[in-house]
């Protein structure tokens, strides 16, 4: 659709594997923003998210020959990005750096019906999310930001629905504690 024409992911992957390097730009254009929000929320800032998306797209190209099912490119790319986000998180922990505080967020006050109180609550929630474990943060983002159902999350990440719910429920408790002044 649109600029990229009607070529399916599968067709583009095959073309790139047939030597047409430039066709990869179609997949870049198609997926550049799809997981941007996920990456930004996993890592705490737009900059970090953008770095992760850029690296993931490059790595997906490097390993394109390993993409077993070319028509499942989207899911395969997501896993590469997910691994990248987890690796970045581990690296920062090793280096003693916390996740970036959001310095570019859209404040609730910018939204037409927002109040100051809501803006503060939103910022507080963002900060609190950085204190969750990566697994808790991920399930929260995928469910409440990306709007996926538990079975969809299970399909993407390989976890069971039961373990996802367990993580989520712990996350709810933790967030309640961290957010108590704002509730």
């Amino acid at each position, binding site marked *: 659709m649109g600029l990229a024409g009607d070529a399916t992911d599968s067709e583009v992957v095959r073309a790139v594997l047939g030597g047409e390097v430039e066709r990869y730009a179609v997949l870049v254009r198609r997926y550049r*923003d799809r997981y941007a929000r996920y990456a930004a929320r996993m890592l705490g800032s737009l900059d970090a998210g953008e770095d992760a998306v850029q690296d993931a797209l490059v790595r997906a190209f490097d390993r394109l020959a390993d993409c077993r099912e070319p028509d499942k490119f989207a899911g395969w790319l997501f896993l590469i990005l997910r691994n990248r986000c987890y690796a970045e998180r581990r690296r920062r922990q090793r280096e003693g750096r916390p996740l970036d505080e959001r310095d570019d967020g859209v404040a609730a006050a910018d939204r037409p019906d927002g109040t100051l109180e809501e803006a503060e609550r939103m910022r507080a929630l963002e900060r609190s999310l950085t204190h969750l474990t990566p697994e808790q943060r991920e399930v929260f983002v995928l469910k409440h*930001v990306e709007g996926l159902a538990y079975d969809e999350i299970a399909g993407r990440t390989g976890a069971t629905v039961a373990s996802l719910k367990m993580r989520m*429920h712990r996350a709810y*408790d933790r967030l309640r504690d961290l957010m108590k002044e704002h509730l």
Partner: protein
Amino acid sequence: MSLGYHPLVKRLLDGELSLAELPPELRAEGAEALRLVGAVDRTPVVLSPTLDDRVMAVVRRHAASRTRRAWHWLTAPRDVELRLRVRPALWAGALAIAAGVALLLARAPGSAPAPAPVARSGARDSVFVRFVLYAPGARHVAVAGTFNQWDRNAAPLVRAGTTGVWTTTLALPVGQHQYAFVVDGERWVADPAAPAIEDGFGRRNSMVAVTMRGAHTL
């Protein structure tokens, strides 16, 4: 550490229950929980417009270096015999040619006859040019161009090991040539690393110039 949410409230947050379905004594807690989760920022994120270019720049670099690496693999063990028949100065010049496409193995006037795997051209003013394409997903690759009447069957490439690289060496007459790779018998693919020119039919051809000094990106 405050008390966590009641299990029913958690099910509310999971979307499995509505507020009205909660027991009355839990509704305040439920409303509070919904306020918490409702505070999450769902604003879509759009990354900077230069991301595409940055990704493709790195992608091209990786593609070119892959071909270069295949190069060294190709030129090292298999071409010892060819190398011996070439003047050293020309060989060094050949190695200096950048990224990807055509390696020249110049035949100096009066040198030994062409080695076995390469078809003998017969003409004195022709030069051996190697073509390389990284295409791990291809089942069949050939090169066609002005030097072989664009015949897709005239010059098949062979796989070089298991790296996904395809290659062949042709004796080309001196002059300017256009060419393209033919993948799986039907897809015309320009050489990613060579200069590209519109073919007039909606695709692009690659260019290579062959002189007695060798093959050039020209």
